């Protein structure tokens, strides 16, 4: 017969039925022999405030003055404490998997496999994204380098940036001040024909596409600036070709050293001609990039 979980034993006990006490679990150390004589006694004295059970006073007395029963209890409690401590320590120190059952482990393994597959897919996605971004960065870098290269070329061509390189330094000594703007312009054109890349006059006037030459009563003007004598033209380009561009018959040298002008021209090659004169880039009023 199963024991009542929380039966109304009060009534049962009054009836003298040993139901809850008698079958008080095999752990209860209750024997049938002990039960049979016990039940009637308890039933009889039940009215007298339950002397059948041990009350608090007796419990405290037994607790302070231990008997054999308590020694047995102590031994059992020792074993129990040992077991609980072992179990708690095992749970705390070991992985939780050793005590799990087959099905749980399989389920867990499945979960982990699915999770790792999902994460691998995510890794592949992210790596593809990274590759895409990387190539984007690369192509952007190439484009920027190309743009920078073109900017450098155009800055030198437009005269907005200093430049250096091998070239020649042409010095025109003109004591009678007879060198004309036309001669100077022709010389510049000849030098351009010979592949001059950067030119400057007296270190102050950068010769660009819009540079103009003229002369007035006081002397020569280039792009609005007065040109003092001696005139020094610094040119970056192939020194040999540039030298030839001024030495040919009918060129600068022959014109200046002619009796009509009576000056001298010296042409010096230099491995490193540095031109620091620049022009300010004007803002275009009409032209826009097409």
């Amino acid at each position: 017969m199963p024991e009542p979980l929380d039966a109304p034993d009060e009534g049962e006990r009054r009836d003298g039925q040993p139901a809850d006490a008698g079958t008080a679990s095999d752990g209860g150390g209750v024997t049938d022999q002990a039960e049979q004589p016990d039940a009637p006694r308890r039933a009889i004295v039940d009215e007298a405030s339950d002397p059948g059970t041990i009350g608090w006073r007796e419990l405290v007395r037994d607790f302070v003055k231990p008997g054999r029963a308590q020694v047995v209890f102590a031994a059992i409690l020792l074993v129990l404490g040992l077991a609980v401590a072992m179990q708690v320590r095992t749970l705390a120190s070991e992985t939780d998997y050793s005590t799990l059952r087959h099905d749980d482990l399989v389920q867990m393994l499945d979960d982990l496999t699915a999770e790792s597959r999902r994460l691998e897919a995510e890794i592949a996605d992210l790596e593809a994204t990274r590759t895409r971004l990387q190539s984007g960065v690369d192509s952007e870098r190439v484009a920027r380098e190309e743009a920078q290269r073109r900017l450098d070329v155009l800055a030198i061509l437009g005269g907005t940036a200093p430049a250096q390189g091998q070239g020649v330094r042409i010095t025109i000594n003109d004591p009678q001040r007879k060198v004309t703007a036309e001669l100077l312009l022709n010389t510049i054109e000849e030098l351009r024909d010979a592949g001059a890349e950067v030119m400057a006059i007296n270190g102050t006037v950068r010769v660009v596409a819009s540079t103009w030459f003229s002369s007035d009563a006081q002397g020569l003007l280039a792009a609005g600036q007065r040109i003092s004598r001696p005139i020094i033209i610094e040119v970056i380009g192939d020194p040999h070709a540039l030298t030839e561009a001024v030495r040919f018959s009918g060129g600068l040298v022959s014109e200046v050293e002619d009796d009509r002008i009576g000056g001298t021209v010296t042409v010096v090659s230099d491995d490193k001609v540095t031109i620091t004169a620049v022009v300010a880039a004007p803002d275009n009023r009409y032209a826009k990039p097409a």
Partner: protein
Amino acid sequence: MFAIVGLIIGIALGIYLEPTLPAGLQPYLPIAIVAALDALFGGFRAYLERTFDDKVFVVSFSSNVLIAAVIVWIGDQIGVGSQLSTAVVVVLGIRIFTNAAAIRRALFHA
């Protein structure tokens, strides 16, 4: 008095000596502990009702623990180990509550 001392000594031994159970017996220790708890409550109830017998107590304690472990072991062998251990825990839990109710009535008359 001895009971408390015994419990403390047992816990201390378990903590400091670090005894280990063979791996094969490991899964049955929790069930054995629950069975031991049941036996303890039963024993205390019997003591309160003046029907305590130490020999019966020791034998029933041992057999309870053993039977609980064996039931679960058999369950493991035939593939219903988790269900059987749940069943054992439920049954022992019911018994523990029943015994606790009896102890409560004996001590508090309530």
